[in-house]
């Protein structure tokens, strides 16, 4: 058996790949659900109902999808340039912390819209800085950014713990380790009344479109792609490699930081050390399922959010452990990687 590179990658194959990957993943996970003594069909039906069965369920799923779109974009733009940003989780938390810290009192004098924009920008800068460091370490010293960004996730989470139990502790939280709340006037308005769904979803969708345009229509987008495909050839063709990758890092880290900001300014209102159910890591799965395409990221985010919100409801109804959501997500990642391979290679006996 050997692999042979296809002459060209068909768009149809790229579009079919994620659906095939998800179908195979759901098939494989059916076995695990059956082990819990529950019919997989019942379980999957319960998941769909839990994620879309009511107005509330739909808004919850979309609320969950909003930060995922941004962490998914963060991973996608970085991976496209072969910058392995696995630090989305840390960048999310630092963005959240900055939004809460500044949004509590500092910006009370500004007009609301301007204040929110400043908060988001500040969170993006914090996330960007957190990724620029490891990127420079890789470019200057050859330190693998996968390891440094992963380790930074642990460091940032401890730092958040330090802040919410120390300088940013909410004195009115009855001793619970949570940060001071964002000023009520600075919270993002609701999108649907009587739900947690907020304007953050619109922000995320707009950002996805903008990233899509930047990637397909600008010089920076072309340089990113070139740097990812073949750095040496790109450098030879005059692409400033260091500058391009630092810009990619700023964009990627900034997007993950923005995810933290909209979560705090939207549904959460304050920061805790458990506020992210792995948004950063799930963003990697989202990016891969989307084959790194910005608009694909939106669809993949809705899928992952469906799995998570649906699994919680399904778990309550059937007793299947809700960790099945993490299993489905990770198996989808592995099947998607395999499916992507077959869009670029064919097997010859």
């Amino acid at each position: 058996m050997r692999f042979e590179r296809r002459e060209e990658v068909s768009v149809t194959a790229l579009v079919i790949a994620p659906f095939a990957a998800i179908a195979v993943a759901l098939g494989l996970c059916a076995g695990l659900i059956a082990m819990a003594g529950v019919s997989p069909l019942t379980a999957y039906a319960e998941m769909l109902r839990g994620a879309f069965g009511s107005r509330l369920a739909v808004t919850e799923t979309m609320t969950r999808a909003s930060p995922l779109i941004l962490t998914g974009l963060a991973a996608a733009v970085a991976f496209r340039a072969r910058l392995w940003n696995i630090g989305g989780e840390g960048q999310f938390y630092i963005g959240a912390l900055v939004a809460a810290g500044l949004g509590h009192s500092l910006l009370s004098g500004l007009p609301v819209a301007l204040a929110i924009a400043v908060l988001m920008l500040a969170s993006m800068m914090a996330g960007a800085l957190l990724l620029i460091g490891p990127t420079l370490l890789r470019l200057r010293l050859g330190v693998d950014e996968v390891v440094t960004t992963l380790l930074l996730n642990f460091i940032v989470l401890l730092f958040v713990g330090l802040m919410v139990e120390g300088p940013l502790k909410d004195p009115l939280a009855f001793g619970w380790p949570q940060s001071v709340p964002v000023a009520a006037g600075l919270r993002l308005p609701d999108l649907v009344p009587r739900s947690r769904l907020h304007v953050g979803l619109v922000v995320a969708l707009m950002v996805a479109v903008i990233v899509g345009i930047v990637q397909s229509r600008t010089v920076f987008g072309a340089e990113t792609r070139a740097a990812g495909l073949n750095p040496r050839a790109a450098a030879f063709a005059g692409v400033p490699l260091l500058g391009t990758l630092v810009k990619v890092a700023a964009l990627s880290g900034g997007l993950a930081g923005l995810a933290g900001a909209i979560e705090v300014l939207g549904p959460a209102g304050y920061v805790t050390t458990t506020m992210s159910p792995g948004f950063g890591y799930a963003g990697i799965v989202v990016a891969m399922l989307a084959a790194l395409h910005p608009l694909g990221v939106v669809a993949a985010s809705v899928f992952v959010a469906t799995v998570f919100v649906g699994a919680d409801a399904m778990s309550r109804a059937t007793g299947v452990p809700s960790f099945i959501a993490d299993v489905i997500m990770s198996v989808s990642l592995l099947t998607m990687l395999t499916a992507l391979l077959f869009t670029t290679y064919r097997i010859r006996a």
Partner: protein
Amino acid sequence: MSDALDILMNASLWAAVLRIATPLIFGVLGALICERAGVLNLGIEGIMTVGAMVGWLTVFWGGDLWTGLIVAALAGMLVGLLHALLTVSLGLSQHVSGLGITLFASALAYYLYRLWVEVGDLPPTIEPFQPLALPGLSTLPFVGEAVFSQTAPTYLALLMVAATAYVLNRTPLGLALRMTGENPHAVEAQGLNPNAIRIGAVMAGSALMALGGAFLTTAAFNSFFPTMVQGRGWICIALVVFASWRPGKALLGALLFAFFDAFQLRLQTSVDGVPYQLFLMAPYVLSIVALILVARRARAPEALMQPYRRGER
């Protein structure tokens, strides 16, 4: 200052160093074997989690402690085989598939644990490995308590360092493995199958990683809980670089690292007014610092992270 000195003079610190180092020694050796054959195994964090869960569960279900370790190693091998199939046979990105393996293996471990184990207010416990006093040696003053009163898996970890160094540097198998990591084409030219060697290396390395995880639940603690591996796998990946891919230096790195960790744990209780999170950050910060310090002279195996496809350059 005298606080610090008191801590250093206490044999219990040095005993703790070896105890904290044990899972790291297993993990770093495992990662090293994979990388010397040319495969970066970022599945380590998940494989350690699987080892921790499976080792514990085997004992919880009535197996003895050594059976627990063996079953954990076998489970680690299976996960390693999956990583090898994806990265070696299919040649997928070792970064992304390694992360995928970590996400998958930890999720599966948590899922099966929840499915099979009734968890009340506190996680159920097992009777873990007890310190094994080596006759004659454990009664020596200071060293006896510091070095020779460890649990059996710690001695096993030290043995594995010697075994790994021997196999890598002194046997034809080790030579073939190292050559696969440097130049798989040359291995092929010798009539050997580089991909088979890589798959074997990843499975062997993953077994060691799983043992590191199993140590946590069968010797260091006596129960399993999610997120208990706490980034130890990632720290091992950093330690491999720090050790410039050599088993002896890997042991040294793990011990040095464990020393700082044990020291900060004790310092934490004697220093007031410093947030405990700063101490907890130390291991991760230290790993990054270690990476930066050796970055200039680190020389990874030549073919690390390059999939080998016959007839393709």
